[in-house]
């Protein structure tokens, strides 16, 4: 029940604030209710963590009710370690973004009620997506997340918001359409073999021809590749990010885009292990291109928001690379990466959002020497930036290195090229920091005053987690590992054994060879 409750609380919160009176007088009350709903969800998610038996693995806290009997559709929820991790990411980030949205200046005639309500709706749907164990239910919720984002961009974003929102919608609808084809295909396949079903437990042992499996796989994969986004389907992201408020950016890139990589793990690998293996050379190539391409593009950006969007293209490349390397190290790394990338990107979007709001411009050229007048702001930007370039000691390093080490044992060329990304990452972050924060104070930047205590308070949880998980990621890895092991063994490629395992040298010396 706890999963349903957890998804329902933010939805009910959204309903409550839509019913509340609009206008200036009640704005604070609306914000308080929104934050309260998200905090309650966070508390529930911690309760879920406590309920979840780490040692047992598998899908837990399951619920199952028949929804559409004719098609074998169930309202079925359940989480494994991967789902738990992503739900936790969602519930941790939502209060942060709601707090960060406190002072957002919205386009006139738009009310704060529906702005915050859409965010809560998004949170509820995301929780549903991460816990759905019925493919049809997943598809419905997956498509439903488009609606809140469409309105969050289209109604509350910047000057280009209409174009960006429509572009976002079309891209993602095309992906969704392809997935729908596969969903229908699944019905055809399962109903021929007996009773139609969409439950993951039934689908993961499907007996289909190689061609059918590949076609079904492609439908899912297309939707997830667009969502993630994988090169060359990434171009909607920079536009969408540049036209949204910081809070929308965080929800979109840190949480909703993760559905793409989450979907690859949950649906592509679990349902179509053979086809996933078949496609892996192509996917790995595209992922490596994403890493390098996204990083190079980030270096070339002048708009802070587009820059961060492109760094995410690069980071998603790492995540997808780790998933399709099919080693337990890289896949666990990818899952942890989803969480860490969520934190570090959230910190980056929020702190640059503050900079942009104070300067009235997102162009890097309009900044310079800000460190002098806003040392705390620049310190936070630096920590967030260093986490994005995967400095050891900060959370993303652990996950990135796991991805690379696992990939290396599968494919040296892929790992070697991907590793070049760490040089490019240093460039895109440090050049951005240098241009905005150092040197003499640039004319026009005088208004960029330092962070207020409330802003520090809203950013602090993310920063503390980034440092803490950098030194001690094990609590999350303990949750992730059992689920990852199941998936990796389901795909069946297996971890490559070390070529010269330790102990061999001693044996050789002992003359046993």
């Amino acid at each position: 029940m706890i999963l349903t409750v957890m998804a329902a609380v933010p939805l009910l919160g959204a309903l409550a604030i839509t019913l509340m009176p609009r206008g200036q007088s009640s704005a604070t009350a609306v914000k308080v209710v929104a934050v309260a709903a998200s905090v309650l969800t966070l508390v529930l998610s911690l309760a879920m963590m406590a309920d979840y038996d780490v040692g047992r693995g598998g899908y837990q806290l399951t619920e199952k009710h028949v929804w559409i009997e004719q098609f074998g559709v169930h309202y079925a929820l359940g989480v494994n370690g991967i789902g738990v991790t992503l739900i936790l990411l969602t519930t941790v980030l939502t209060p942060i973004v709601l707090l960060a949205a406190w002072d957002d200046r919205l386009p006139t005639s738009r009310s704060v009620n529906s702005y915050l309500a859409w965010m809560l709706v998004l949170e509820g749907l995301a929780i549903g997506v991460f816990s759905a164990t019925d493919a049809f239910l997943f598809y419905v919720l997956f498509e439903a997340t488009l609606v809140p984002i469409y309105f969050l961009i289209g109604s509350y974003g910047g000057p280009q918001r209409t174009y960006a929102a429509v572009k976002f919608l079309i891209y993602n609808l095309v992906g969704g359409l392809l997935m729908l084809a596969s969903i229908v295909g699944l019905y055809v396949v399962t109903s021929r073999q007996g009773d139609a079903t969409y439950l993951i437990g039934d689908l993961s042992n499907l007996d289909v021809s190689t061609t059918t499996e590949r076609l079904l796989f492609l439908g899912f994969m297309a939707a997830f590749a667009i969502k993630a986004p994988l090169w060359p389907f990434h171009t909607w992201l920079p536009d969408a990010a540049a036209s949204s408020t910081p809070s929308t950016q965080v929800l979109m890139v840190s949480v909703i885009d993760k559905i793409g990589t989450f979907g690859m793990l949950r649906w592509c690998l679990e349902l179509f292990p053979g086809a996933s293996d078949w496609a892996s050379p192509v996917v790995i190539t595209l992922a490596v291109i994403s890493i390098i391409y996204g990083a190079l593009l980030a270096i070339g950006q002048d708009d802070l928001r587009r820059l961060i969007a492109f760094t995410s293209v690069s980071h998603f490349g790492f995540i997808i690379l780790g998933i399709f390397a099919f080693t337990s190290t890289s896949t666990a790394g990818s899952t942890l990466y989803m969480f860490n990338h969520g934190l570090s990107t959230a910190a980056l979007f929020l702190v640059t959002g503050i900079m942009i709001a104070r300067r009235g411009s997102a162009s890097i050229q309009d900044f310079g020497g800000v460190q002098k007048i806003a040392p705390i702001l620049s310190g936070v930007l630096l920590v967030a930036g260093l986490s994005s370039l995967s400095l050891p000691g900060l959370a993303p390093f652990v996950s990135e290195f796991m991805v690379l080490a696992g990939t290396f044992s599968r494919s040296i060329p892929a790992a070697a090229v991907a590793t070049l990304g760490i040089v490019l990452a240093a460039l895109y972050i440090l050049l951005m920091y240098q241009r905005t924060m150092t040197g003499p104070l640039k004319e026009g930047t005088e208004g960029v005053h330092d962070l207020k205590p409330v802003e520090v308070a809203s950013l602090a949880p993310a920063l503390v987690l980034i440092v803490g998980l950098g030194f001690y990621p094990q609590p999350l890895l303990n949750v992730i590992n059992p689920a990852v092991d199941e998936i990796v063994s389901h795909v069946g490629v297996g971890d490559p054994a070390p070529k010269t395992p330790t102990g061999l040298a001693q044996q050789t010396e002992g003359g046993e060879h």
Partner: protein
Amino acid sequence: MLELAWLLVAVPLVSGLGLLVWGKEGDRVGHLIGTAASSFSFIVGLICFFQILGRDEGDRSYSKSLFTWIEAGPFHVDMAYTFDQLSGLFVLLITGVGTLIHVYSIGYMEHDARRRRFFAYLNIFIASMLTLVLASDYLVLFLGWEGVGLASYLLIGFWQHKDSAAAAATKAFVVNRVGDVGMALAIMLMFAQFGTTAISEVNVSVNAASTSTATALGLLLLLGACGKSAQVPLQSWLLDAMEGPTPVSALIHAATMVTAGVYLVVRSNGVFDASEAARNAVIAVGLVTLLAGAWIGCAKDDIKKALAGSTMSQIGYMMLAAGLGPAGYAFAIFHLITHGFFKANLFLGAGSIMHGMDDDVEMRHYGALRAAMPVTFITFLFGYLAIIGFPGFSGFFSKDKIIETAFGHSFWVGLGALVGAGVTGFYMTRMMMMTFFSEKRWKEDVHPHESPKVMTYPLIALGALSLLGGAMMLGGWITDFLEPVVGHAEHEELAIPAWLLSVLITLVVAVGVALSYVLYSREPIAAETPADESVSFFSRAGRHELYGNELNEAVVVRPTRHLTRFLVFLDGKGVDGFVTGLADRLGDASQLLRKPQTGFVRSYALSIFGGSLVVVLALLAARLA
């Protein structure tokens, strides 16, 4: 105490982070807390060191795992440390010289409004550097490795209101990251090959792997070492790094951090022992850098940059020694430690001079300073005698051993190292002449004066160490002490006796010194740097750092910039344009189809004719084929 050795890292780390978070109220005591933290680590280090010294020779390595850092699938990394002979020596060097530099900085940074932050960064550096040398696992070593890189970045750019400082900081970090690619790939290779990244296990298991694996590992590690230790081809960041406050140059960019590459090679001795090709690469890098650095040192008029060139060169010596295998490992470490003493001494001396000269670094504006700053002069003189290898001073013993071993390896390598010693004598004498001797060339309103005691006492301590550091070689102590870590080597017999070689080396140095003395005392030194056109090719190339920056610019920076611009253009017009444009193209296509529908019979007739012609020609072609 050994089981509490993690305090070595924890105390300065907590102090550093605490000082950063603490607000303005911390300004009054920040420097004291920072210095206390570093001193604490020094004392703990001393206790631990004497504890292992008191143990049996075979039992001097103490390892402890604090917790599991990362565990997933077969990947397992412990947050573990090893206090042994090698790391023990480093701990003493880092915390000892580090503490002296903390004390010195109290005076040097007195008038800087951000002194608390400066000490916070220094503390973070000490913690990271200790992590690097105490790590039992390559990935933990990498944590310290990048931590010192971060501290270096923050401290080079400490005066970041200056564009040049900020740019130098970015450059240092990015160039180091190129080296880190090598480090990271080496660690991945270890994992794939051996299933572990623990230092001790890798260095044993490598014997069971193929030589090509050992070579690959060695070269990748060397790439990392080149970045951190400013060795050719990744040397270009070190001279720019002199933008940082001078105590930083002394601690990070001379005595400790830049020697981490040498530590890495010596620590990975199992890998390098297994591959002659990798060792030869290390020798080549060391030899080229020792000559290149010395060359640059001869041409710079900026006292800090001249010293930075010298640092490159001296690390080249260490690298060269490390490349000589078991015969050279201990000597590399010996020279690393004596260099830590005398180069910190020289840099802090330079800082003391700048302190008295209104932060002017131009040696052409110095001259005859020996009377104005006697303590600085005497201590600097000790550093000078140590670095040129004056008999009896520490550098004499350590450099001697390296050149001797190099000759044992190959005549040409030995000759290169010998020539380097002569050039060292030349550029250091030049520096002495321009700074303390010759005539006054001071700018107006500059009143040179001796620095306060808080700065001169550390100088005196380092001056004494520059003289006495050679004592570590008494009875071959340091080689025996390090033998359990780096392995035993048979002594190579040279064609000539060792004492004769020592005399020969001293003679070569004397020639360099004499040449420089004559050149810089014959006529007055110009108070401004002569134009590029009026100096020899050697000076010109040296001034331009042997055109390393120009090369990087042409080969790496500019192509990357062009590629980036091209991709930005392509992403908008190409990738995005293609996908979003599909819809537009569909519209365009129908527009195109509409165009021929002109309504004129003659144009329809023409197109019918044209079409028939094509059909006929196609039929003919098909028949003929």
